[in-house]
């Protein structure tokens, strides 16, 4: 009931966007369908004349069909970049199999005696195709187009991941924000569209003879028109931004930026995994990212300084069970050796080596400790074992390796790594129940995901890193008997990124300067 009200409110508030996305969705589907029919039907007909090719072509189309849609989009991006091109191509590839297969099946199902009689009466091959085979295959052929249309409506939601618009923008925004109303706001119209396409084509299928011919003609004309509905914002403004769905929806993401800087760039929505790639290739000029991501270094991007503190602080801090600290007093000093050692740029460098140079987190961690003179030979184990946790991405693996090496070098404690613990809630739960003894966490995450304080408290904390750390430290102690130690130094928060050269040319270093440039 609650979700329903939220949903209706959301639709009301975003009516313009809903309309636009629905039209984009219809346009995408129709464009791919036009291509699918234009290529699939002749291809199917060719196969009826060269049946020996059929297993190869159908097999190929079948393999395409089995490629997960998000992977197919991923394959297409290096060649075609982001935007409508790869989206339509992917949808087209998916629509190929049902259309080709049904064209072939439809024509092959035509009674051989009918074709033989027609040929015997003196119809030419072309006349047999047009007057006998195609009309008789039409119901099956239409069933194939119908299948393709429904598949396309579904897969077209993924177009939102590559800046091609459509109803997927709401869906993936909703998933990223864990907002069921927002997911439904996109999913319900998408399902309705699928039903509408299906119903429409089913109606066409039920027509007979001449009506069918008319309907076919209407369809041929209307599909390209529908495809024309598909219009995307293109860089009419100075810059085109590409943002991940979560960033667009989160109050500390784009809405926060708009609030603090008055920033509202022309933007498209993109899969989080693709924003960096899109920025590098120049498809978009401005993206959201994380300030210590290795790709900043790899793709030569510049982090725009958040001079008005729109993004909340996400300082990395080891969180440890109080029980453990009391039982092993030698542990805290060993962990403290890393405090303040990792700046944003140092962490970015380490991430880069793991994510892009494919060095192991352990090698990178040991190398770092050696260079800082922090490395010591492991001591013989003579006591309890410390269980180290980490979340499931490169930076956390590196931090876990750093702590493991320090504990081994500076204490007699054993170390057991429990890395790759899904997300924040899993790690926090593991720590509370004592399944692990410590893991690196970010202040902003502890605040928003675990503690979830009322809005008034959040406002009072504001963007001050020290205030946030103080608050989470106090609350963790009180609620969970967990201890936030000293910060490591870097702040893995949201960041606005531009290609370094582009930013240099425009003389943009801070978000304020960007905002001024866009005015």
């Amino acid at each position, binding site marked *: 009931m609650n979700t329903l009200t939220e949903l209706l409110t959301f639709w009301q508030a975003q009516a313009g966007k809903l309309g636009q996305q629905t039209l984009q969705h219809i346009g995408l589907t129709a464009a791919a369908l036009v291509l699918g029919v234009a290529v699939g039907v002749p291809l199917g007909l060719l196969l009826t004349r060269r049946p020996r090719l059929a297993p190869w072509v159908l097999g190929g189309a079948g393999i395409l069909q089995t490629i997960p849609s998000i992977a197919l989009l991923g394959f297409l991006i290096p060649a075609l970049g982001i935007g409508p091109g790869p989206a339509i191509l992917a949808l087209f590839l998916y629509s190929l199999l049902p259309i080709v297969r049904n064209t072939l099946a439809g024509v092959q199902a035509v009674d051989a005696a*009918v074709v*033989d009689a027609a*040929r015997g009466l003196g119809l030419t091959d072309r006349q047999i195709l047009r007057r006998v085979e195609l009309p008789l295959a039409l119901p099956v052929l239409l069933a194939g187009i119908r299948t393709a249309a429904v598949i396309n409506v579904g897969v077209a939601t993924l177009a939102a991941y590559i800046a091609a618009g459509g109803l997927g923008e709401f869906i993936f925004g909703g998933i990223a924000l864990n907002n069921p109303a927002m997911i439904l706001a996109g999913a319900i119209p998408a399902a309705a569209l699928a039903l509408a396409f299906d119903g429409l084509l089913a109606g066409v299928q039920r027509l007979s003879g001449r009506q069918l011919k008319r309907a076919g003609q209407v369809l041929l004309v209307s599909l390209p028109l529908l495809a024309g509905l598909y219009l995307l914002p293109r860089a009419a403004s100075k810059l085109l931004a590409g943002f991940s769905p979560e960033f667009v929806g989160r109050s500390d993401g784009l809405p926060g930026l708009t609030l603090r800087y008055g920033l509202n760039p022309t933007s498209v929505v993109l899969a989080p995994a693709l924003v960096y790639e899109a920025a590098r290739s120049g498809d978009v000029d401005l993206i959201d990212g994380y300030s210590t991501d290795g790709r900043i270094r790899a793709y030569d991007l510049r982090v725009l300084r958040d001079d008005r503190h729109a993004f909340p602080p996400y300082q990395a801090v080891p969180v440890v069970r109080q029980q453990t600290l009391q039982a092993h007093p030698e542990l805290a000093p060993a962990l403290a050796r890393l405090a303040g050692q990792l700046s944003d740029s140092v962490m970015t460098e380490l991430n880069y080596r793991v994510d892009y140079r494919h060095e192991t987190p352990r090698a990178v961690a040991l190398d770092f400790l050696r260079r800082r003179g922090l490395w010591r030979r492991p001591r013989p184990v003579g006591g309890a074992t410390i269980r180290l946790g980490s979340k499931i991405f490169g930076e956390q693996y590196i931090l876990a390796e750093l702590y493991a090496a320090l504990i081994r070098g500076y204490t007699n404690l054993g170390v057991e790594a429990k890395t790759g613990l899904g997300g924040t809630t899993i790690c926090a739960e593991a720590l509370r129940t004592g399944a692990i003894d410590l893991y690196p966490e970010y202040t902003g995450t502890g605040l928003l995901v675990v503690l979830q304080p009322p809005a008034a408290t959040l406002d009072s904390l504001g963007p001050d890193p020290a205030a946030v750390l103080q608050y989470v430290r106090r609350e963790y102690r009180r609620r969970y008997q967990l201890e936030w130690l000293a910060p490591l130094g870097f702040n893995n928060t949201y960041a606005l990124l531009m290609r370094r050269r582009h930013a240099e040319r425009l003389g943009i270093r801070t978000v304020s300067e960007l905002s001024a440039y866009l005015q």
Partner: protein
Amino acid sequence: MSVPTPALEVRNLTKRYGSRTVVQEVSFALVPGETLVLLGPSGCGKTTLLRMLNRLVEPDAGQVLVQGTDVREQPAELLRRGMGYVIQQVGLLPHYTVAENVAVVPRLLGHAPAQIAARTEELLRRLHLPPEQFANQYPRQLSGGQQQRVGLARALAADPPIVLLDEPFGALDPITRASIRREFRELPELRRKTLVLVTHDVTEAFELADRILLLEAGRVQQLGRPRELLLRPANDFVRRFFAADRLSLQLRALYLNDLLTDLPPEAGTQIILPSESDTNIIHSSATVQQALEELSHLPADPASPAAATLWLETTAPAGYRPLTYASLMTAFGRTIQRLSAA
């Protein structure tokens, strides 16, 4: 006297599929209006032979000539539009009405719509498919026999001089089959046409053929009039092929004309037709089978033997002679003996 150009001539026609020879060195020539039946067991090559006539199958060697012209001299489609084509499965276009099906070839030939409509109506009427009832029906609404009639009408629509028929009655039940065959035989449309008909049914062949071409393993075993195959088989295969149906075939292959000399002389020739029996007349060009059928329709009344008599009309000498079961069968027996001995 000049020899007329054959309507259809086949010279040394051969077809191989891989190493298998399906049709081997077949030759024949048909005069206009003649009906040739291609007869033989399944797989003997008769359908392949037929399909080479309208180039649905291209021969590996040999020639097909229509009115003395090689069929390869014109596009296959144009050739086919000039030949009727009827197949066992009928193959009506399921999305066309009966009238549209019949009109396919005339439309391809660009005939005027009014002319096509008139022709369609005429043909449907003649084939016992009243157009007001059937013209706008779809093939699936018709019975098998009705469909085959439409198929026949379609083949005849453009009035082609040659009609090819591949087991045209093969898919019908025996009763429908016999009645359609009778209609077929009596259809004036077909009398003038040169027909090539494929069948494996010996009775059908004898009923419809002017000449029979008996095929086995792609080779011609014998080509000739039905009675020649029956009474003077060229080889053992031909003899064995007809052995099972010998009597019934003889009844169909012999005409009353053949029996005239063997009819009992005591019956004599009456010049004047007996007044009471003016409906019980059969012409001497009928087969013995037909005479028997007529006799079986007469009332069996021992009190008036005249009523149980069939009058045989002869032309040379002109007159009428009485026929009874006894006299007919006696004469039939003698004739068979005489012809087989010759």
